């Protein structure tokens, strides 16, 4: 079994005229790689009617609806994260409840508000109550603000994780740009932060550093928007680790932090 904990799909109300092709490409590549389940999110309208990382409540709902439709269309392959904008607390909490009740299995926080902001506490409390993980978009060592997003880094995520020790937080795309060593130093002693291996980065030494810092038991596999790099990292790990360690990264760690029954043979 192989769980991709960091996938995205597109829909009609995004700037991507090729949204169908991209979705089909993800599913087709997933077949080749052997992905059992794509745990995915849709970030609102991806910029069409509100910014990707600051989606309006209306776009949040529309994006989540599109993902629920995909989940219904591919019940064996796709599971959803409820994507929310924490600046709209009531809407965010209601949207999480609605989407989890409809079968989603996690919460996606992108970059609408810093991870250590108190506005994230009601969302983390809901994650604890519903026993679902939170996938937090991370800029690995944010040295300054980047346009278009209020990105968080690992130190900020760890601050939130320490306030909510019973919630599993997934640090997004360790290979997704920025100084991953900075993140790995930060997560070392925060046991409820899991490292998602996705991202376009395939740096030599990065996976060794992940294992040294978080240990095999806190690594989860993902692809984000470059599935070839995800597969490459998996192949490399398969050449270095035991069968049991690889199983942990492929799916067992994910099965531990997502709700029971979220995956086929779980």
């Amino acid at each position, binding site marked *: 079994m192989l769980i991709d904990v960091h996938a995205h799909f597109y829909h009609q109300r995004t700037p991507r005229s090729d949204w169908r092709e991209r*979705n089909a490409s993800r599913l087709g*590549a997933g077949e080749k790689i052997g992905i059992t389940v794509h745990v995915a999110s849709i970030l609102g309208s991806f910029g069409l009617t509100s910014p990707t990382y600051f989606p309006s409540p209306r776009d949040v709902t529309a994006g989540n609806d599109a993902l629920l439709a995909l989940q219904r269309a591919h019940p064996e392959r796709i599971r959803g994260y409820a994507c929310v904008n924490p600046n709209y607390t009531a809407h965010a909490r209601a949207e999480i409840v609605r989407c989890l009740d409809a079968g989603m299995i996690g919460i996606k926080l992108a970059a609408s508000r810093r991870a250590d902001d108190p506005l994230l506490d009601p969302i983390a409390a809901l994650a604890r109550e519903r026993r679902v993980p939170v996938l937090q978009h991370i800029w*690995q060592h944010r040295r300054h603000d980047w346009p278009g997003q209020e990105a968080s880094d690992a130190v900020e995520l760890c601050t939130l994780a320490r306030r909510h020790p019973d919630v599993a937080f997934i640090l997004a795309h360790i290979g997704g740009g920025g100084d991953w060593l900075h993140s790995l130093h930060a997560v070392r002693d925060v046991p409820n932060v899991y490292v998602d291996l996705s991202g*376009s980065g395939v*740096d*030599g*030494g990065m996976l060794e550093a992940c294992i040294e810092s978080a240990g095999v038991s806190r690594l989860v596999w993902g692809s984000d928007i470059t599935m070839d790099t995800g597969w*490459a990292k998996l192949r490399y790990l398969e050449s270095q680790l035991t069968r049991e360690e690889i199983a942990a990264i492929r799916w067992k760690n994910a099965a531990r932090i997502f709700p029971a029954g979220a995956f086929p043979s779980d």
Partner: protein
Amino acid sequence: MRVDCNAFLGAYPWRKVPGTSPEALVAALARTKIDVAWLTHLPSLFWRDPTAGNAWLCETAKAHKGFRPVPTVHPGLAQWEHVLADAANAGAPAVRCDPLYLGIDPAGGEMRVLAAACGATRVPLMLAVRLEDARQRHPNDRVAELPAAAVRALIRSDPDVRLIVTHADRAFIEEVHFGSTPEEARRIWWDICWIWGPPEDHLATLLETIGSERFVFGTGQPLRLPENSVAKLDLLDLKPETRAAIESQNLAALATGGDA
């Protein structure tokens, strides 16, 4: 047959990278079923005289069956022509010059003279757009990325020069390819290591719009996992002859001076 035209030996100054020794590279090649690696001495890219690593590189390559040296040339240093001649005499498949790491104008006079000399000696000139993702580089690693305009200028500067450009992404490749005449574009080969696969499908798109004959297998190892370039090809539904062209035959054609 699989040939990696974009590999390195030796330490990287900006972070700890495992697998930089010849023995480790041999193991990585075996792991990823790469038969031959074209190699540059990585530390010397950062030295004032980057050619100082060439002798070790050539000796090391001689001692390993699958290694081919790609020596570095600095056209701003006196007698650089000897380095080029030595490389040609040693049977090097290419020479490398990364002008921005040397602090020289990437499309300036020194690079144009080097391009002309490479054209005259029929030795391909290799350049990297980048070595690492700009977002993660060490705070003191401030060398700019190679601009696409420089590649266009170099290919226009000499009718015989042939370029191998590594670590380029889709936008860069499209800008240069469609910003060149068909004759100019036929003298540029692109390594696939930085081109995205699915779901964005940049590599599949480029193979369709530009043609598989322009692409060569490269990895950027050990700075990058060589598994990535293999995975990219495995994710495509390529005809065996197309895959063979990318993995080795386009480079073989380049080495003999012709097009694939």
